[in-house]
């Protein structure tokens, strides 16, 4: 089969980091990612089935890995070599079309009894991610044994699969997994009715979180940051009440919330609150959802969240430099939102995040977020495009494997 494999190779990882800094997606050419013809390994167990991907998305965490920017935190949580790709719509051998829920919890690891989070349906919080019958890997796409979506075939546990309704396009189906992340983030945000929410970032995660907020919460105002005109338009179309440039977000939130502002320059001038610069707010938004995960975005988040407000970190942060004094002083909550599981709904019932994500994709016609697809052979172009998606007017870039010859080999 044909697969993009990521090997453990420190010099190449360093080269990818350097190249990625020089040009977006530059790590694909020099890093540890290689296209190879390989034999598919044996299935990890009897409940595993072969999936032949149709579309496989390129996610921000994939890009961080390929461009050498992922955190060392993940080193013990993955097994090399692995094939990336966890946003997948594919076919089973009986031609059933499925979407993958890539988290590898206790069930897929053949661990019984399951850990408490898995028992509660919160697979993303599984406490056994490096144990059981599988090599380490928090998701399909980081585990050697399973393979991943950037290949013509991989293994999936039957519990990971969701059948795709016939009326849903492949493009819509490949968005279901990131949409589930957005849905989970919206629930983790615990947005008060009539509250104010800021979504930092209008990449795939930002836009999907925005749609999920619209679907599942009742805020008074949702403000989104967007760097590029196309992102602005999409954010508005998905229900943002206001859209602002990232470097204007502090002033915008001040206006939106009627806060006053504190200026660092004002302190130097012994003029504490009387400079019209806005370095941080006296009040702020009830909830800020950071879909960027950088030092700058987290610093912004702490500057614009009201005292005792909540910051939800959705974008994968890697290593950041952060002044935490406001977290302490303003008694902010900073929580992460990783993947998905089971959500508690307003009416007291619960639902699988993926089921909610299917509804969300259908309701907002989110298949439109797939902007371009590439064959595996053009993986370097695909990675470069995905790494500069915003500036090129794109959102989601995916590999299209529907015409790969190897896909049809028995």
């Amino acid at each position: 089969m044909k697969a993009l494999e990521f090997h453990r190779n420190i010099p190449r990882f360093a080269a990818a980091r350097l190249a990625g800094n020089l040009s977006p997606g530059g790590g694909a050419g020099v890093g540890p990612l290689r296209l190879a013809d390989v034999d598919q390994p044996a299935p990890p167990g009897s409940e595993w089935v072969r999936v032949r991907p149709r579309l496989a998305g390129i996610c921000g965490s994939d890009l961080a890995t390929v461009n050498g920017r992922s955190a060392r935190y993940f080193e013990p949580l993955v097994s090399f070599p692995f094939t990336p790709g966890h946003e997948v719509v594919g076919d089973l051998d009986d031609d059933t079309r499925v979407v993958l829920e890539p988290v590898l919890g206790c069930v897929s690891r053949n661990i019984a009894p399951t850990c408490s989070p898995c028992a509660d349906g919160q697979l993303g919080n599984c406490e056994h991610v490096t144990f059981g019958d599988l090599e380490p890997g928090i998701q399909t796409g980081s585990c050697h044994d399973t393979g991943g979506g950037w290949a013509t075939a991989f293994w999936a546990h039957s519990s990971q699969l969701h059948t795709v309704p016939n009326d849903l396009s492949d493009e819509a189906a490949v968005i279901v997994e990131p949409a589930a992340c957005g849905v989970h983030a919206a629930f983790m945000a615990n947005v008060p009715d009539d509250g104010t929410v800021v979504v930092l970032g209008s990449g795939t995660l930002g836009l999907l979180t925005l749609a999920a907020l619209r679907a599942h919460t009742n805020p008074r105002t949702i403000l989104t940051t967007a760097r590029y005109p196309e992102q602005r338009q999409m954010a508005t179309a998905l229900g943002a009440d206001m859209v602002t440039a990232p470097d204007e977000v502090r002033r915008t939130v001040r206006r939106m919330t009627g806060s006053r502002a504190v200026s660092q320059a004002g302190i130097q001038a012994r003029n504490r609150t009387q400079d019209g610069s806005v370095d941080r707010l006296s009040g702020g938004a009830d909830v800020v959802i950071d879909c960027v995960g950088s030092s700058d975005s987290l610093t912004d988040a702490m500057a614009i969240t009201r005292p005792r407000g909540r910051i939800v970190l959705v974008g994968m942060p890697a290593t950041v430099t952060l002044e935490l004094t406001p977290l302490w002083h303003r008694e902010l909550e900073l929580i992460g939102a990783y993947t998905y599981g089971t959500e508690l709904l307003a009416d007291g019932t619960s639902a699988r995040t993926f089921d909610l994500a299917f509804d969300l994709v259908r309701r907002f016609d989110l298949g439109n977020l797939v902007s371009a697809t590439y064959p595996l052979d053009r993986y370097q172009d695909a990675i470069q495009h995905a790494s500069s998606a915003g500036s090129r007017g794109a959102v989601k870039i995916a590999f299209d494997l529907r015409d790969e010859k190897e896909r049809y080999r028995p």
Partner: protein
Amino acid sequence: MSNGRHLAPRPGFVLDVDRNSPPIVFHHGEGFKLEKLPTGRSRVIYPAEPLEGLPDPDGAIRHALLNPIGDSDPLPALLRPDMKLTIAFDDVSLPLPPMRRPDIRQRVIEAVLDIAAEAGVDDVHLIAALALHRRMTEDELRHAVGDRVYDAFAPKGLLYNHDAEDPDGMVVLGETPHGEAVQFNKRAAESDLVIYVNINLVAMDGGHKSTATGLTGYTSLRHNHNVHTMLNSTSFMDRDNSALHASNWRMGKVLRDAGVKIFQIETTVNNDTFGREGPLSMLQKREWEWSGRERASFLAMQQGLKVMPTNLKRKAFSTWLAPYEMTSVQAGEVEAVHEVTTANVYRQHLVPVEGQTDILTMGLPYICPYNVNSIMNPILVMCLGLGYFFNLYRGRPLVREGGVVIISHPTPWEFNPVHHPSYIDFFEEVLADTTDPGKIEKKYEKRFAEDEWYIHLYRNSYAYHGVHPFYMWYWGAHALSHVGRVIIVGGDTRAVRRLGFQPASTLADALEMAGDVVGPQPTITHLKNPPLLMADVT
């Protein structure tokens, strides 16, 4: 003309550009450009040379106070020991650039205080009538009223800035027949006499506008600082055709009917902006009359400014004090006084111009009324170009309807956060949404006007009121509705686009772009200002 100075100042005139015409100096922010205009179809409007100042300004002031115009007693007859007297004066926006010491306000206020002291008046307050402008700093107040007056009054809290947002300091005195609420400074309203000390730099200033605008707040200003009024002020420099002034005059009547007694003192200055001698004197001379030395010093200055950091340039220009001289002073009843004042302003500024033009060019200088000791941000560029300069006409606009205005200015995306906090938000939020003055007024004005943080900064710091950038935008509404395109030469491209205008690298490019709107071989008129002039267009 032995030393370049004429015995009698020459009036303004219109130069038809021909092959022998030298390049024309365009102001360009904190710099200058020499531009060649197309021959045979371009003209340049030059201001009149500075009128001679009054030989004895202090004597003229005292004479005016003792010999008022209109229905008014001489000042001494209006004063008595047990009275409340309020002296209000124009703020830092006048004159431009600030004038050399002694400022005319100092001369007038000292004369008034001498007479008040002779009459035994001891309840005197002095108020900078700044409406919704930023507060004046101590240095600026000292410069305006002089150290003697400042030291005698300010430490006792008797010399201060008007505060239009002081809930205990403002009062509504009535309403005009047009339904315009007339809000007024409470101290002034409760005074037995309000003496207003004015410096009339342009024809827009003075009259009832001094008090009805300078001592009021948003409650009143929203009735005449709005899009409708500005579209019906053609121009706001021509009181008889200005809805802005009509509203102020109506409000003046309400003040009078409410018992507010005003003794108006108005002064005019010549347009000796850059000095008859000195490092900038060539800027108010006609280019073909420059001496070799002036040409060399201009080129040296131009080159030096090109390499100088912007902050240093701003600092250097902000130290320039104009050697203005007082050309008239009149006191008494507001309207009678203002008629004489306006005639004196026109005597200096009016330049007869025959016919309109397809393209109006203008080089904007480093200063406008709202960036004294500050930054000329993009909104102020729009206001100075399309508000003030465009409206410096009587009769018809200089540029024909559907014509093009070309502005030369660096237009940096830069703001002074102390002076212009709401401008930043206006630029980032409002102009990103729309540049249509009507839509802006309807959708955004109220929120900015009532924003508590802006009000806090206006009252306690040195910030223009939250609503002020809206007024700046409305100031250009008449021009925006009249012209077909606005092009800015040499500006920050992003900032120019945010304003809704087109950027051009050079004047030649701009003229070519303008051709798309006005057709080939268009007529071009350059408004060579400052020194100030006003086109009398027939």
